[in-house]
């Protein structure tokens, strides 16, 4: 998927997607020599902001793991990253059928909580997966991205009866999703 491309989350067979997962993975910082435990861990965080008519209504992030309505769930904070071979280290699950009727957009973001820019992070990626069959819908590579610490990955929004996903990939800077709000509002 490329920046700005939109795909409809209708399945090929006509049924629509019921659950999607936004997965985030990155490689843990390598251990170095003496006092190896003092490596600078990399903590990336995935968040999802729920909008109704361009008003943020709810947010799912590492301090609030389940949206109040239960339709969006974060699997938990990973503070250090993984092996960097493509597995998700953090994931946000969205049960599209249960998203409250007034929520019309969900924006996914990634932040570097520990402050490293994406240039310093290795093997980082972000992807969207159809939870019902494990099929990957979209994938972004973050690593080597540039001098910024956050990215607004994608948004899922209502269109007609179903949902459409638009890849965004806008760079931004910030420690948590709050810092990103000014960058998110223009893409709604």
């Amino acid at each position, binding site marked *: 998927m490329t920046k700005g491309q939109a795909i409809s989350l209708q399945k090929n067979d006509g049924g629509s997607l019921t659950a999607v997962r936004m997965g985030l993975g990155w490689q843990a910082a390598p251990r170095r020599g003496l006092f190896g435990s003092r490596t600078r861990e990399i903590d990336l965080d995935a968040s999802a902001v729920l909008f*109704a*008519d361009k*008003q943020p*209504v*709810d*947010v799912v992030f590492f*301090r*609030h793991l*389940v949206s*109040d*309505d*239960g*339709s969006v769930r974060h699997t938990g904070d990973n503070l250090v990253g993984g092996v960097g071979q493509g597995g998700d280290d953090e994931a946000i699950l969205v049960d599209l059928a*249960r*998203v*409250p*009727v*007034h929520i019309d957009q969900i924006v996914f973001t990634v932040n570097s909580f520990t402050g490293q820019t994406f240039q310093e992070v290795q093997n980082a990626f972000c992807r969207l997966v159809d939870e019902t069959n494990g099929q990957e819908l979209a994938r972004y590579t973050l690593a080597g991205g540039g001098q910024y610490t956050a990215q607004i990955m994608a948004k899922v929004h209502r269109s007609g009866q179903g949902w459409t996903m638009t890849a965004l990939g806008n760079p931004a800077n910030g420690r948590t999703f709050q810092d990103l709000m000014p960058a998110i509002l223009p893409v709604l």
Partner: protein
Amino acid sequence: MTAELVRGQNHPLSQARLEIRISAGTPIVAVAALGDDNGRIHGVEWVAHPGAPTQPGLEVPRQAAADHRLAVDLDAVPEAVHRVSVLLALPVGGTGPARFGAVAAPFVAVTGLDGGEVASYTITGLEAESAVVALELYRRQGAWKVRAVGQGYAGGLAELLTDQGLPQAHQLAGNINDAVAQGLARSVQAPLPRTADGDRSRQAAAPALGPDQGGTAPQPGPVPPMSPYGGQAPGGPGQPGPQQPSYPGAAPDPNAVTQPSASTAGAPIDYSHPRRQNAAPPPPPPTAPPAAPGQPAQPVAGDATGWSMEERLYNQVWGMFEDLARTTAAYRSAVDFAESRMDKELEQVLSDPRSRIGGQGDAAREAARTRHAELVAQAREALDRDLTQLAAEADVVEPALPPAYARWDNPVWHAYRVPMEIPMALRLGDLHLPEADRIRIPMLVRLPLERGLWIDSGAAGVSDGSFTDSHAMSRLAMETAVAHAARLLAVYPAGEFTVHVIDPAGSGAQSLAPLVQAGVLAAPPAGGAAGVADVLGRLTQRVDLVQMAVRGGAADSLPPGFDTSQQLLIVNDFPHGFDDRAVNQLRYLADEGPAFGVHLMMVADREESSGYGPLLDPLWRSLLRLTPVADDHLADPWVGHAWTYEPALLPPGSQVLQQVLSQVAAARTKFM
């Protein structure tokens, strides 16, 4: 790939050596019978039962248990055999329920020797039946197949075996019952150490704090609120030493929790790996039959994770609680949004000068209202869809609940027997939300209690105002307290729960009559200042003693004959009859008691002790506030809705309480 069979469905079997796993949540008898090509059982030697556990090609357990594994070797059965039936029956004359309708739906699975599941079947829809043909393995054109049968018999094994053409059916049924009764007598019902597994529960088995209890509002935030329900640290201070008989060299064994009666001393057949006891998985939970396309799956009782049916039901109830809370949150936020959007749009219309001319303004107002109505209707539709599903789930879960989780009007209480084990949790009442009036969520609190209870007899907190008469209110509060206390007495094994009562002015005598008459109290209700001082003094001393022993690591040096049971102190009419010393002792009990098995149940109007000022605030805060009438003061741990709590009260005119208490009293006499 497992085939989940529905009644009457069959499935081919590729292996001859099979294992049949049964899990029922309550001890049942498993029998396997061979039949000829007409399905007839030729004689007693064609039936493998607890009295004769092995027959050619068959092996069944020797005694009743909640979980069974039967071994079947289809190559080893006689040539004449065309059918192997797996029969289940409830033990006769034991302490368990007498009809399958009162227990959770039994689950049967056929597995290969490698443990791979071939087919499974949940026997649902049983009512008065006490014996059932679960499965049939049958020979069809040289190949074996399995069929889900689920045919129940109200007349028990005798009727079942007669129906299968066995001439000596009644005699054999009698033999089986004798063998089972002997097996039950032989098996040692050890008081199980509550290990970490005993506390295993949904992680969110967290808090329902009343807004008036100063709890952290369970909002998005890093502070996990303290919980009246939450699991307590295993072996922590919640478990005083003497409560937990230590078995020398015994590591905490989750199996102890999963196999209450099967693997204890009397069981001759142990199918588990001798050195890998912890690895045995619990029997699979009952699964929902496949749903029709486009329809949500039919709910099944016990459809949750857990090591026992009890734990599954507990988790399922919590799952329903959370789902209802969240679904309602979705609905409320959508409606709020619709309203705020309409307000904004109407305001815009007002401030726009153009709208004052002609019909433009009216049209815009109308459009805003339509948009509001549309969104609300959509939200309502989504809510109704979820509520229908939850209501269907509640309809199957409620009848399957064990006594400790069940309402007083549940028939399971009529089949009440004094339990051998402490249940995981106790139902204190029902919770519901205004949007979903028909769905009642059982309010379950973990046992042993982690905090005391306060039955609020003050009329102030009650919303509907119909109970302005304070006398009526305090009588109702006392009746509620008695219903809770009776429930606690009933779900603890004999002699493991003791109730003391302080009723200084004797005003609760009428309500306390059921407890007093049944003789289940430790002593008659204490009256007068002297009585108050005496009871408080003894309990204070007790907490002090146990505390010293536990802290000193000398829990086993408590005096012989020391009563190690949990203690509940019901205090009526506080602070009447309390002097300063007694108030201090009460505060000590509230602070230190719960960790050492002494709990308070205050039946009080907070206003009446207002003379003490803020001094008693911590006391009230430490107690879980319950009301004798419906009141919306409890918050859920996820989104903090105000839930209306209704106490678990006896249906008017019901004799269940008397029946249950007389059994408790009889068991206590035996125990003493």
